[in-house]
């Protein structure tokens, strides 16, 4: 299974592009499809207690679900709540849990206060799109799809309010990861990396993280400049129209007015292209920067697991030494207690080793799955982005070819 993004463009009616993710069947794999859309943002309540409710629609043939086509209403904190539950269940055993979208106090306050302006509309659209991508990434994970919390999230009409959503954002995850990393640094015994694969992969993800962040920053710059170009084109169109009005040669005056109209249309093109730059390119990169934090998180969980195992082993060692000393004293009760503790610790050490092996195995599978999906995701997005550029060029050709006879008509 892989995820790909499709873009819908409407140059006239909608101010924004609609993007949705679609899972496609793998050849010869299970025929298993699920498609989630997040739509119809609706403001509920007033003032600072107001929130946005989103409609989450699932269309699926997967047997796990009670219906094939159903929807529920969810708010942002519900998504965070879902993520928190999944993270607490799966992160520590090595699964890469997709991070939830970022919180934004500034963005939400504007919406709450009731500013119906373009920037708050853009914010809501950006969030809606991010929530959709988040859900799609979550359900395409074969283990997470089967999780009861996920099923409940998608199906139940009522959902208990999620509290304590502070630690749940991806910023929260990152904090958790950093804490784990700190703990790792404090380790006095270095981990014996007999498995070079993990070391190599960790380094790879570090480098990838740096590169993607840089790329993301460049694309954000591009989006910004593209929006500027749109504004400047619109302003030029107006000034060209005024020049056309002032011009006393009739044919030239008409041509200048036509030029103004063409530039106005091109302004719209630039706006649409800026949206494509943003949703197909910039947001993709942003998502992957956050995803890679989650990947780094599981590597650190593995370290923690190893540490736990080592700690148990050290404790066992100490207890054994204590047992040896107690042999020469006449304290049968204490001796028995120590023997019991040793037994327990032996069990713990065995469990620690099993846990470590299990998480290592899981991570290997997860990383492989992650990388495969990433390749397909990037490739699809690149193609879609190039297609958006093609569309812009096609429109440009149309507009300028229409203008040409007008310019030639000047006599």
């Amino acid at each position, binding site marked *: 299974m892989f995820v790909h993004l499709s873009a819908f463009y409407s140059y006239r009616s909608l101010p924004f592009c609609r993007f949705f993710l679609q899972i496609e069947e793998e050849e010869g794999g299970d025929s298993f499809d699920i498609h989630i859309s997040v739509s119809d943002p609706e403001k509920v309540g007033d003032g600072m207690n107001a929130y946005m409710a989103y409609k989450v629609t699932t269309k699926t043939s997967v047997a796990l679900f009670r219906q094939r086509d159903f929807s529920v209403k969810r708010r942002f904190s519900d998504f965070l709540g879902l993520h928190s539950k999944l993270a607490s269940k799966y992160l520590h055993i090595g699964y890469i849990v997709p991070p939830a979208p970022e919180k934004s106090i500034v963005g939400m306050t504007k919406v709450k206060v009731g500013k119906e302006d373009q920037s708050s509309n853009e914010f809501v659209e950006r969030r809606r799109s991010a929530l959709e991508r988040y859900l799609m990434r979550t359900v395409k994970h074969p283990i997470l799809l089967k999780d009861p919390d996920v099923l409940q999230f998608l199906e139940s009409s009522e959902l208990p309010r999620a509290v304590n959503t502070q630690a749940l954002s991806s910023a929260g995850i990152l904090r958790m990861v950093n804490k784990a990393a700190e703990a790792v640094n404090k380790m006095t015994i270095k981990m014996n990396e007999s498995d070079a694969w993990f070391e190599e992969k960790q380094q*790879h993800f570090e*480098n*990838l993280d740096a*590169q*993607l962040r*840089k*790329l993301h920053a*460049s*694309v954000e*710059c*591009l989006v910004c*400049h*593209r929006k*500027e*170009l749109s504004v*400047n*084109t619109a*302003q*030029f169109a*107006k*000034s*060209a129209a*005024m*020049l056309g*009005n*002032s*011009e*006393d*040669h009739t*044919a*030239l005056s008409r*041509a*200048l007015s036509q*030029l103004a109209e063409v530039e106005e249309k091109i302004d719209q093109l630039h706006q649409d292209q800026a949206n494509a730059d943003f949703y197909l390119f910039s947001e993709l990169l942003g998502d992957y920067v956050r995803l890679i934090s989650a990947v780094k998180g599981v590597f650190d969980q593995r370290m923690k697991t190893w540490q736990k195992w080592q700690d148990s082993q050290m404790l066992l060692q100490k207890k054994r030494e204590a047992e040896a000393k107690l042999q020469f004293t006449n304290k049968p009760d204490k001796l028995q207690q120590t023997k019991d503790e040793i037994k327990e610790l032996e069990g713990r050490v065995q469990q620690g080793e099993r846990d470590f092996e299990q998480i290592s195995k899981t991570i290997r599978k997860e990383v492989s799955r992650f*990388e495969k999906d*990433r*390749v397909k995701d*990037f*490739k699809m997005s*690149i*193609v879609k982005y*190039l*297609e958006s*550029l*093609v569309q812009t*060029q*096609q429109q*440009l*050709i149309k507009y*300028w*070819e229409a*203008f*040409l006879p007008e*310019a*030639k008509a*000047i*006599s």
Partner: protein
Amino acid sequence: FQFIGIEHVVKTLRSVSVDLNNDASLLIDIPDALCERDKVKFTVHTKTTLSSFQKPEFSVPRQHEDFIWLHDTLVETEDYAGLIIPPAPPKPDFESPREKMHKLGEGEATMTKEEYTKMKQELEAEYLAVFKKTVQVHEVFLQRLSSHPVLSKDRNFQIFLEYDQDLSVRRKNAKEMFGGFFKNMVKSADEVLIAGVKEVDDFFEQEKTFLLDYFSKIKEATAKAEKMTRSHKNIADDYIRLSATLNSLSAEESTNYYIIKFCLKLFQNFLRVCLKKVEGRVASDEELKLTELLRYYMRDIQAAKDLLYRRARALADYENSNKALDKARLKGKDVSQAEEHQKRCLQKFDTLSESGKKELTNFKARRVVAFRKNLVEMAELEVKHAKNNMTLLQGCIELLSGN
């Protein structure tokens, strides 16, 4: 970083003013130019069949200041008061690429070698574009003069073309002689025109209204066009940075995932070669056609306004001389002197009006033709570039989808 002089400037676009340099009796062009630091040395090449020149073909080196000297002497010449003096070419402005060069030098440590080389190439291209523009604008100035029936015969113009010594001595003398009298007056030209001497002639009344309004509109349009093309350039620069980062990214991807490495390499190559070239070219072609057109005619309209101003002054002088004549008649003193003065003023005003009418009519025709040519060429270029872009993009998509 020293920008090395260009041996032969490629003359791609010389279409701001049309139909110049057609008269074989006096052909002028600037085939060559050198850029040292910020000083540009133009090679002015003349081919002529006129006997007023010493040789049939010759070249001289000239600096920007020499062009300004020539323009100013023409403006100050009383005999040319009824003509539209072609606007002086603006000073060569390497500010923008120079600033970028500075930034590039500062940021060198933070970039990869490839990124640095690429940005440096871009800068060289930008220097070249500024360079081409300034040569074009200086060339057009001379060609406007050579195709004008009256101005082409000007003695100082001939000196400018022919004198094989340094003109700087003459320039200094000129400054002392004229002291920029007319130029200072022209600054407040609009107010005189508007405050208004009563206009008896319909033609000039209409021209006045039209030119004043048109000037402000075209000034605005020029400014907006400049902003627009600057945005295009910014985007082109963004694509360079993007392609450099994509390059590093593709290097990072392990060989296990050959597909994505291939994808990224392709994407990155595409961005670097195609989009930048085309996007960048779109920025400079659009600029040359649209922005330069608007900028040039803005200055030309200023020159037309100056003509109107001079005529308005002549009219004012004539009216004053009338009043003086009446006063003299009343007093019975110096009547013949006053009559002479009045006759002269009237003559001057009539000559100005007659030649002014001709000049302004020609000006309109010239403007319409130039706009037509440039708008047509711009639209054709836009179509051409968009088609090229599309072909490249579609080729890329096919390659990527095939894998």
